[in-house]
């Protein structure tokens, strides 16, 4: 029996060799890929148990972790005195045991959790001091006064408002309504968290969409005329005082339909308005014919210079605004008025406004101002302004600014007039379906001669004004409040 015993012994050793191999395979060879597997929920749970860094607005905590006595060790909380968590939810997002992270909680997750390589020296430091490693604090560029003006102004209406510092690209406000409260989703009670998560995602008016940078996007309406005017000036064939064709009704080629003005009758100068006049009174017929004269390519090119067609990270993802392709003349005419299939985020319109305000230099919008050591509040990383593009020349920018001032002084945007401060603006009232109340738009910047803030506001379906809504009446006051929060009266 000696020989078969030896064989049995070998069989046993082979079995154990296989087990040593399979164990190494799982724990060493493929460990990284298993750890990063999409099905693996341990990473989120591991991070949940860490002292996550806060998200700050003007030095105050809008999202922070508090030690609690349960298995997750830290409870994530949102909002603090003067900072309504619902007004900031579209930026902070949530950090949840059941649904992971969203918003800045996800986009800045590496800093907040302390995983980022940028925190390497901090981590080494905490090894030396024996201190529990902490995530870093992320300070947003948001100005709480502007944010409050946007949030209060939108109120119970659905819509969005974005404010940028034209010179740096700092995002001063970014509101999306309806707002929502991240606190219940961050609950450690999984059924509470789950039902709050489902409520957020299944609600009819889609609060989970960050309307400022994503969601379904909006037709920009007449605010887009600024972009068409920019294309006209950049072409070299037009000046602000060039005369355009602005009849009461414009026949569209190849069809029987016509384009009319929002106010009855022909445009200024008996149907022959200047470019500046056309912008001031938002003449549809003159911009429709201007657009058809410029052609699809010129407008599309100008739109792309302003950022259309381009996704961005601020570090939240900004959806690409779109200008349609292969247009026939009627479609091009409609598109020139910011209708048809032109779709834009409020962020895109704010960027365009800021680019004009900044003399034609469009800065990259950024939401993170600084990353700080959560213990010492020493900066680890500071935001550096970055130029994104040069959509128009300085001369064109100046001309556009003057024209937009004209819109406030002697046009549709008179609601934005401020004592002692020059304001440049453009209104928009975007149709988006038969019978549906229009989206009310307002873009503006102030002071026009030394811009500190550029704003884009949209109120969905006319807001509380419904079918009676105009950009000036519904969105205008919100934009004005936001500008006033920055500009000294």
């Amino acid at each position: 029996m000696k020989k078969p015993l030896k064989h049995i012994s070998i069989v046993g050793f082979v079995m154990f060799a296989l087990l040593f191999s399979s164990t190494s395979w799982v724990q060493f060879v493929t460990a990284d890929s298993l750890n990063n597997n999409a099905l693996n929920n341990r990473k989120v749970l591991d991070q949940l148990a860490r002292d996550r860094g806060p998200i700050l607005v003007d030095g105050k905590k809008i999202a922070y972790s508090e030690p609690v006595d349960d298995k997750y060790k830290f409870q994530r909380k949102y909002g603090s005195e003067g900072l309504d968590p619902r007004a900031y939810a579209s930026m902070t997002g949530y950090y949840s045991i059941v649904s992971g992270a969203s918003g800045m909680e996800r986009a800045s997750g590496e800093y907040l959790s302390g995983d980022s390589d940028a925190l390497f020296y901090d981590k080494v430091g905490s090894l030396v001091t024996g201190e529990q490693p902490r995530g870093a604090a992320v300070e947003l560029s948001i100005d709480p006064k502007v944010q409050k003006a946007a949030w209060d102004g939108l109120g119970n209406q659905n819509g969005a408002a974005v404010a940028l510092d034209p010179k740096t690209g700092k995002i001063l406000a970014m509101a999306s309504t309806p707002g929502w409260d991240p606190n219940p989703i961050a609950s450690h009670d999984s059924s509470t968290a789950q039902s709050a998560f489902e409520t957020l995602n299944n609600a009819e008016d889609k609060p989970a969409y960050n309307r400022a940078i994503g969601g379904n996007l909006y037709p920009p309406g007449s605010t887009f005329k600024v972009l068409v005017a920019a294309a006209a000036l950049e072409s070299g064939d037009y000046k602000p005082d060039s005369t355009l064709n602005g009849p009461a009704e414009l026949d569209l080629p190849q069809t029987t339909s016509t384009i009319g003005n929002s106010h009855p009758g022909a445009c200024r100068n008996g149907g022959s308005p200047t470019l500046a006049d056309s912008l001031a009174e938002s003449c549809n017929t003159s911009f429709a014919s201007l657009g058809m004269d410029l052609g699809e390519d010129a407008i599309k090119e100008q739109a792309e210079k302003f950022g259309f067609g381009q996704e961005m990270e601020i570090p939240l993802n900004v959806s690409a605004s779109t200008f349609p392709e292969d247009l026939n003349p009627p479609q091009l005419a409609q598109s020139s008025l910011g209708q048809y299939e032109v779709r834009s985020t409020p962020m895109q319109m704010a960027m365009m406004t800021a680019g004009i305000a900044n003399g034609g230099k469009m800065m990259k919008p950024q939401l993170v101002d600084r990353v700080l050591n959560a213990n010492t509040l020493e900066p680890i990383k500071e935001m550096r302004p970055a130029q994104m593009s040069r959509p128009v020349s300085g001369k064109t920018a100046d001309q556009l600014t003057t024209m937009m001032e004209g819109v406030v002084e002697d046009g549709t945007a008179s609601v934005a007039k401020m004592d002692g401060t020059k304001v440049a603006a453009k209104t928009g009232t975007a149709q988006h379906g038969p019978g549906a109340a229009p989206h009310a738009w307002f873009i503006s910047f102030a002071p026009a001669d030394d811009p500190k803030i550029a704003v884009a506001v949209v109120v969905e379906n006319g807001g509380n004004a419904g079918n009676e809504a105009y950009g000036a009446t519904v969105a205008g006051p919100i934009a004005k409040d936001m500008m006033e929060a920055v500009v000294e009266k």
Partner: protein
Amino acid sequence: MSANPNQGARPRPYRLAELGLLILAIAVSTSAYALVGLGTEDTIPANVYQYAAWLAALGLIIHIVVWWKAKYADPVLVPIAVLLNGLGLAMIYRVDLGRDEYQNSGVTQLIWMTLGVALAVGIIIFLGDHRWLRRYTFLSGFAALIFLMLPLIPGLGKTVNGARIWIGVGPMSFQPGEIAKILLAIFFAGYLVSYRDQLVLAGPKILGIRFPRLRDFGPIIIAWVASVGILVFERDLGTSLLFFGLFVAMLYVATSKVSWIILGLGFFAVGAVAATFLFSHVGQRVDGWLNALTAEEYNKTPGGSYQLVQGLFGMSNGGLTGTGLGEGRPNMVPYAESDFIYASLGEELGMAGLFVILLCYLFIFQRGIKTAQQLRDGFGTLLATGLSFTIALQVFVVVGGVTRLIPLTGLTTPFLAQGGSSLIANWMIIALLLRISDNARRPVEEFHTGVLKITEDPDDATASARATGNRNDTKRVEGAREHAAGNLATDRATSDDAPTTNLGAADLEANRSDEGPTTNLGTTGGER
């Protein structure tokens, strides 16, 4: 038959080595227990001293009993069993702490361990010689079948996770298959040692392979049918595989017939493949194994790969050195304290810890095989082989399943997993291995284990009267018959239809060395 090979270099008992290793095992187990407390609740458990004392008492009791009754037993078996059992206890306690509701399962398991050690001590004390078990060959086989069928009795048997391998009496659950595997090992050893010659030499030859006569082969067919029966009626691929593997290994050692092994494995493979298609639960296991990391399998209920994949995530999270006891998330894996305790240990002790555990099992296996090689009797050789191979195979099936080497089946990890039946059965196996290894290493002149008792004849007068008859000795060898058969089988592969009428040479040798060559009993089948 001249001098026993062990007589030249007199074997040392190594009892102090066992004590040293045992103290180490108890220290490691207690530290693990304390670390669990530190890791989960930042304090050393208040009862750590009682815990240590309890473990130490169990360890020392079995150590002393072994010293007293089985002085030459293998010195690493007890420390390894205590270490594995202790690590299992710590992890069971740790998983319990991770639950929402504390179930005190660590204490329950410690009670089972106490019971297991008590049984082991009983076996070492009362089973003076493993060859006694050979008397109960067929009784063991019969009992094993009864045990195996118990779960099928309506009202008694319980179905857990699709496998009907449990019986429940009131709040108590028991897996009779765990005990059955020991009984089967005894049965196979006794049966094969008696009939191996018929199996090998008699019977028709078909296609160059000599097959045994049907009547000799009967019990083997019963064994095969039992294995498949478990698969079909109790729906447990693991146990079925375990029994069949045990049988095939022992048959091979007894007969050296490779062809039958291939045939047997072929049969089993056919059965297993058929089962994959016939029974949904087996098919599910295979699908969950092949496509484990797909979202479809992961989210499938019931069946699916959720448990397996969570186990893999736990192990990968542990990496090389583990998260540390109490610092991981073993509770995310269903059955983290029983079926998946290997993954739980892998997460918190890392690959390093698992290698130590695998080495422990490898040691048990290797010492068991070594004992089998040293033994002088065929029954003991087969039994030691069967028992140690059972442990190795069981570890292979369960660890292979957890690490996705083979499809997952529901077997317990010996000594580690929560569960009384398994723990008791494994302590019994250790006790038997201790007994057998003592027998294997004990010098011949120290054989006082009771099988071979050399006694003075109480009546000199009758002795002298008898001396005029067939016998001329004044000594009587008692109880040698059982012993003899085994030895004969070991030493000579001769035909042996009536083993009880022969005496083995070793017994005579033993007799001689103690008292001088005074026997002349019966014939010894041409031994000399």
